[in-house]
């Protein structure tokens, strides 16, 4: 059996991997190799189903629970399981209570415990929420390494397949580029900072009543700061306002970010259905995986499994 996967973002690569390990012959086609046009290139890479519950539905928790294990199995060593820390400045402590009331899987921690987890934040915050079972990965590293692994295992990568033929199944994972009118784009802007003066071991979410923000540590003393949520699919550069808000948040987490280098700014367009939940939809021998919204790395494994199961269920029926 041969399957064509359209799109080499996180959804496409995850389903290609899921099929490859189940022994299916897979071809991946994407006009921009290396995921360079994918929303996932700009992702935070947090595998944080419990935190996401703050603004997402319970389904996201259920679908995302197994994500860290899936990534670790697919790419050993890529996942850091240090949990998530949710912090708020003193005047917004009530917001921490609100966050806690909407989520589970955390412990309320005090100044001393925050300092024990993140020594560089010692004395800066009095109260926080620690989600110990959450994890994170570097999305760009994961995309590159996953593509390399797939190629090494015989998956064929194409940039142009004008007349696709001889495929038993097609799986469309093209995000915002779909023809599906139910998908809308939600713009997210991010930036990468580099400073030798701050060390963090886990993603930090900083609560602010008007602008929630996260800072994810990456290799080489870089930090991903994101991400805005704007109902728009404009791909233009980050706006001054968004940049200011992201930088302000980083600065309020630690003043040393004021001296950081701005290594990169970026804009990704997240694909979302009206309920912001993902869907795997089958139409004959064509499957579409879309609507992963702001949960690409968290939900791609579950979506990949669902799509692969559809194909195998059909094959079992045929036999």
């Amino acid at each position, binding site marked *: 059996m041969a399957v064509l996967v359209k799109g080499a973002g996180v959804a496409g690569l995850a389903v290609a991997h899921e099929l490859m390990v189940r022994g299916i012959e897979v071809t991946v086609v994407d006009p921009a190799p290396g995921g360079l046009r994918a929303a996932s290139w700009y992702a935070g890479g947090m595998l944080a189903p419990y935190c996401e519950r703050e603004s997402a539905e319970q389904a996201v928790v259920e679908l995302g629970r197994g994500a860290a294990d899936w990534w670790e199995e697919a790419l050993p060593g890529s996942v850091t399981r240090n949990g998530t820390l949710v912090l708020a400045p003193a005047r917004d402590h009530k917001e921490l209570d609100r966050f806690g009331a*909407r989520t589970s899987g955390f412990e309320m921690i005090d100044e001393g415990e925050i300092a024990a987890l993140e020594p560089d934040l010692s004395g800066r915050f009095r109260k926080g929420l620690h989600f110990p079972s959450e994890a994170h990965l570097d999305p760009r590293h994961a995309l590159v390494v996953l593509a390399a692994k797939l190629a090494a295992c015989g998956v064929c990568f194409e940039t142009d397949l004008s007349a696709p033929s001889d495929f038993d199944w097609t799986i469309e994972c093209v995000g915002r580029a779909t023809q599906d009118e139910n*998908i*809308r784009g939600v713009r997210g802007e991010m930036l990468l900072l580099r400073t030798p003066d701050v060390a963090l071991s886990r993603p930090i979410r900083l609560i602010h009543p008007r602008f929630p923000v996260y800072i994810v540590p990456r290799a080489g003393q870089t930090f991903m700061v994101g991400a805005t949520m704007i109902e*728009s*699919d*404009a791909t233009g550069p980050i706006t001054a306002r968004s940049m200011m808000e992201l930088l302000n948040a980083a600065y309020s987490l630690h003043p040393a970010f004021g001296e950081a280098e701005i290594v990169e700014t970026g804009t990704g367009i997240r694909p979302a259905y009206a309920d*912001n939940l993902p869907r795997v939809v089958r139409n004959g021998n064509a499957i579409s995986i879309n609507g992963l919204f702001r949960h690409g790395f968290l939900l791609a494994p579950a979506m990949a499994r669902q799509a692969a199961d559809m194909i195998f269920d059909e094959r079992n029926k045929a036999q």
Partner: protein
Amino acid sequence: MLTLYGTELHSHLLLGTAQYPSPAILLDAIKASGTGVVTVSLRRETAGGSSGERFWSLIRSSGVRVLPNTAGCHSAKEAVLTAQMARDLFATDWIKLEVIGNHDTLQPDVFALVEAAGILSNEGFKVFPYTTDDLVVAGRLIDAGCEVLMPWCAPIGSAQGPLNLHALRSLRGHFPEVPLIVDAGLGRPSHAATVMELGFDAILLNTAVAKAGDPVAMAGAFAKATEAGYAAFRAGMLEPRDVAVPSTPVIGKAVFG
């Protein structure tokens, strides 16, 4: 019945459209609230022209009237420009005028507000000014052409409820004929009932619904409280007394023990 610039509305609740977990939940909340008017922010949602179209068409599908706002504007000039863009984009001359004077409290800059209200009223806009509870400013806004006022009762998104009942009563007392909509600061349904019991014409909500654990259920709860307060004001409430007044007269009772 609520009449705003000649448009009659059945609900006394207006709903903001920001910060919901998803557009689907927003649409359900609009339905549960029974509102006839939703506000939409022009600035943040449309970076890049027509690009927020999918979101707009979802809101339009709710069938309610759209009141665009100038959220995030910090000067009269900026607010006027935003209002003009909104008129083109949404094909409406209604505009909720916001000019922020303090970044931290999001308090309106009432001087720039009056200036912008005058300019926009002259251009034929139907202006809904987001203002403080200051009586003199309210008068100036009416002089500037506003036929509706939207005083805050507490800072935007603070959920504190009415902080200065005296000022709200005073506004109601001085402008008995002007539709007054409490905008900003409501946190729970009892706050909505309280201001409606003062005789206000409507309330506008966003954060209290959007950030609730269950936004749809909360929209319904606010709708009931708002209509309860509205009906109570019209029904004529008792004023509190210091001494008990038995509901059954004691004298003349047939049997004493």
